[in-house]
């Protein structure tokens, strides 16, 4: 059975841009709770995009992933992160090795790199959704960037989640999602890894009296 489904929709492109804006909000805000909100918003937009793609392409198993995205990424993970923030009693400000303006400019540069790097690939794409691949890579790279530059353990979790969001969107917009069973496995892994990291945030806070990962430098040569 061969079928070529092409979803041409500017709506998806606009949703992609909205996800990018949510990511920039994540970079630019100084409050931990706003970061988590930014994540929840981005995941919600992601779920919308996935629902629209499911509707337009007629591949109905994407609806299932949409539902799981809504439950796990929009509700459970943000709730869990808020719970950890409250439980651990973290000071609610994001701390970074770079100043905010500088990290904003850096992530702007990273986003542009993503656009330039994918330029040769998107020229082959016949679809209108030319922003999807560069934006998903941009979100992934920006997530990676936050993981490197942010000091707090919980902001590293958020960076990781951003990377995962970007990849999920890449799979969704370029290949209409991975096979369902793989998606389910990925969701499960992400959920478990966030929970384990959350537990470690809690434990590290208990023993180190801080979740600033700058304290983690006992093990070195």
């Amino acid at each position, binding site marked *: 059975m061969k079928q070529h489904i092409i979803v041409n929709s*500017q*709506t998806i*492109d*606009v949703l*992609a*841009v*909205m996800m*990018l*804006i949510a990511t*920039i*909000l994540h970079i*630019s805000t*100084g409050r931990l709770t706003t970061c988590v909100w930014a994540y929840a918003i981005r995941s919600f937009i992601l779920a919308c995009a996935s629902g629209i793609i499911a509707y337009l392409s007629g591949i109905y198993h994407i609806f299932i992933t949409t539902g799981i995205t809504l439950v796990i990424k929009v509700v459970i993970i943000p709730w869990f992160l808020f719970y950890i923030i409250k439980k651990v009693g973290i000071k609610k400000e994001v701390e970074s090795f770079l100043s*905010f*303006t500088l990290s*904003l*400019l850096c*992530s*702007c540069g990273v*986003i*542009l790199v993503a*656009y*330039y790097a994918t*330029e040769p690939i*998107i020229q082959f794409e016949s679809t209108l959704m*030319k*922003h999807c691949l*560069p934006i998903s890579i941009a979100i992934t790279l920006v997530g990676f960037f936050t993981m490197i530059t942010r000091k707090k353990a919980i902001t590293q979790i958020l960076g990781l989640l951003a990377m995962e969001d970007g990849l999920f969107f890449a799979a969704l917009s370029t290949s209409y999602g991975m096979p369902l069973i793989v998606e389910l496995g990925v969701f499960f892994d992400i959920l478990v890894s966030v929970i384990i990291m959350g537990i470690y945030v809690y434990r590290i806070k208990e023993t180190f009296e801080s979740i600033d990962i700058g304290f983690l430098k006992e093990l070195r040569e």
Partner: protein
Amino acid sequence: MIQLIILPILQIVVIAGLSPLIKGFINNIEARFQCRKGSSLFQPYYNLAKLFRKDAVISETASWIFIATPYVTFVSILIIALLVPVLSSTVPANFTGDVILVIYLFALGRFFLALSSLDTGSAFGGMGGSREMTISSMAEPAMMLSVFNVAIINGSTNLSNITQAMLSYKLLSPSLFLSLAALAIVIIAEAGRIPVDNPFTHLELTMIHEGMILEFSGRYLALIEWASCMKLLILLTILVNTFLPWGIASGLTFPGLIVSFFLYIVKIGFFAFLIAIVESSFAKVRLFRIPNLLGTSFVLAVLAIITHYIVS
């Protein structure tokens, strides 16, 4: 003939007449969010009327700049009102109407306000003026970039042409969407709303715009207040009519203008409502965090332009 006489009058009447209403609307909505009944929608009109009737006190040390400032500000805003498309994509001052002129007219008004704030030698005035200039030095590039992006996409810096061209879009392109987001942030900064500036505060540490106009009274204060109301409305008008111009009248027919007027009210009302929501749900950010906010806007604008070039 119509274009030369009726349209200018119409635009001035709409902008100058409706602007206090928008302010009243925002105040009223915010009051309702805070579970207060809130003042009447028309309260800003009463305030202006009262101020016009009152005597003005002018500091003895003030120079002519202090007296000239309210007029300069008011007139520059009125000229802008002639340059932007409001109800029709045709613009009264189309022959000179250009978006760069609009931005510089805003800057002119602000320049005079900052000068007059220094003029009386009051401490708060100078503080407000310096803060205002700092913020505007960051807001202006972002505003220009986002407006230029629209200009580049439509091939014209003329607001009337831009509006005309944007009518053909069914849905904003991603690049335009980024510009819209950038401009929305800038408008909040330019209009001095929360989270950049709190228009209600008279607490010395947090005042920006209010600090500058602290020395004005009577009709001068009325002119400046009115001008700042109009500024907010004009900024919203630019946002609405460049990005979401659907339903705006292309010519100058009577039914077209009526439809356009109602749509205009609805769209402006929607954005005013958004501003009220933002003001109710966020606190004013610290002064040192403002570059952060405007930097975000700048980054969005830069991305808007470059993505347009890469993906097109």
